[in-house]
């Protein structure tokens, strides 16, 4: 049996187990592949996060960055891509590149650079989970890093002003969402009936965009017009991050009211009668939603 593994990452809100895309990707992959991870959400009383988050700790090994964490899990035989063909594996790499190039800049902008969003939602959320006095400094640093990343990768000539860069990255992000929607079609997951690495990455990037309530929401509005992508996120949330239900009517009833989702103080209702066989830790990330 593999050594116990601990994942430290940003916590959840708005019905999500984590609001941070990379953390969510790793958590989703762990669920899909059945890897037993103990999830430690970073909160006020915990050590300050150093370096990159999420981080996987297993005995003496410390691994950061989602791609490397997923590689490690695969080496421990937790492989969600076992049934994929070589071509599907290649497609996975290509689509992940697409997500990182075309969608991530706009995602970073929505969370960290767009002034109204950052000041009213992102900064307070992160600051409340970081111990003082780092809470005064770290969110600002994350915001500057996000802006740097956007400008470095997309801000070259002939786009010289931030508004032009912004227009371009949102256009690219909307195109990327359209492409993903076309690729998904009516399937449940991107490769057939079982979720794989690509589903983990797409879910990790889309779910925060879909669920977190921001004042400036142009990308979210666009995403909501692609019902198959929304259904994709909701399915994963209800099947892998809550107790699984086989009755479709119960799945619908688990979809909570938007109002309830906004406030992280109201954890979702747990159905104690129906339990997923491999789902021991579903409750732990949800417990951390209450202050």
């Amino acid at each position: 049996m593999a050594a116990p593994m601990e994942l430290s990452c940003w916590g959840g809100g708005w019905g999500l187990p984590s609001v941070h895309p990379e953390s969510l990707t790793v958590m989703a992959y762990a669920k899909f592949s059945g890897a037993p991870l103990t999830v430690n959400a970073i909160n006020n009383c915990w050590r300050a996060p150093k370096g990159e988050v999420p981080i996987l700790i297993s005995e003496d090994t410390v691994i950061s960055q989602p791609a490397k964490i997923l590689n490690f899990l695969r080496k421990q035989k937790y492989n969600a891509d076992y049934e994929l063909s070589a071509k599907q594996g290649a497609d996975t790499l290509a689509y992940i590149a697409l997500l990182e190039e075309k969608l991530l800049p706009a995602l970073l902008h929505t969370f960290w650079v767009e002034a109204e969003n950052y000041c009213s939602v992102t900064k307070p959320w992160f600051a409340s989970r970081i111990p003082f006095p780092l809470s005064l400094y770290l969110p600002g640093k994350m915001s500057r890093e996000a802006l740097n990343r956007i400008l470095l990768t997309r801000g070259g000539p002939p786009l010289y002003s931030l508004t032009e860069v912004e227009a371009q990255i949102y256009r690219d992000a909307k195109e990327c969402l359209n492409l993903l929607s076309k690729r998904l079609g009516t399937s449940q997951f991107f490769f057939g009936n079982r979720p794989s690495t690509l589903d983990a990455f797409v879910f990790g990037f889309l779910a925060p965009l879909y669920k977190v309530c921001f004042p400036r929401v142009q990308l979210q509005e666009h995403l909501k017009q692609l019902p198959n992508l929304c259904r994709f996120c909701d399915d994963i949330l209800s099947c892998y991050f809550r107790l699984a239900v086989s009755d479709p009517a119960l799945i619908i009833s688990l979809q909570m009211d938007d109002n309830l989702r906004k406030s992280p103080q109201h954890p979702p209702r747990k159905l104690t009668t129906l339990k997923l066989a491999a789902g021991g830790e579903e409750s732990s990330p949800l417990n951390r939603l209450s202050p």
Partner: protein
Amino acid sequence: MALAAEAFMTQLAAAEPWPENAALYQQLKDEQILLSDNASSLAVQAFLQMCNLPVRVVCRANAEYMSPSGKVPFIHVGNQVVSELGPIVQFVKAKGHSLSDGLDEVQKAEMKAYMELVNNMLLTAELYLQWCDDVTVEEVLEDVDQCCQALSQRLGTQPYFFNKQCKGLTFQYRRLVPKIRPTELDALVFGHLFTILTTQLTSDELSEKVKNYSNLIAFCRRIEQQYFEGHDKDSSSSATSRSAKRSLLR
């Protein structure tokens, strides 16, 4: 480019057919051009050849400064100047030529994804090798290997990445078969792989990685033969004149 400017450009582009005197500008061949710029230039040249649009390659030391975006290559068509593969593909499309029209929506999505993969991995590797030391060269080489593996698996035994049959027949293997056309993804991959394989660098590690995949080498050879040989008139600027001097694609 701002949305309004782009729409305006598209309208201008659509107004006139492709002229005979279109030119592609890049830096000087042997002394100046960088690995990554050469790959980009070759990709555009391959793309235009595949569309059957004549263009002559002009080498200028100040090409970067002439370019509207500062990036090479750029094309001068009629009275318009367009740089980089993405905008050039759009421009050519506005003039009524497209390689990817026959693809369905899912295939178009796949094509865009693979183009990002190539840009992400191969271009980064080329830039890295040009400018940095070999401190984290292992990571870069591993990325390149992964990318080539993905491309090789995607290509399989087919001639091009997307094998949509189009109108017309062609004579091949002594019989008439439906024509299959390449797409801009094929042009981009060719540009990068051919450059990596044929340029002399301080170490051969990058080209060795690519050479592990025989179907990718066959792919480059096929495109070179089909679209570049026979266009060797201007020997100082042709891409493949250099290949005659090197032991290419062994």
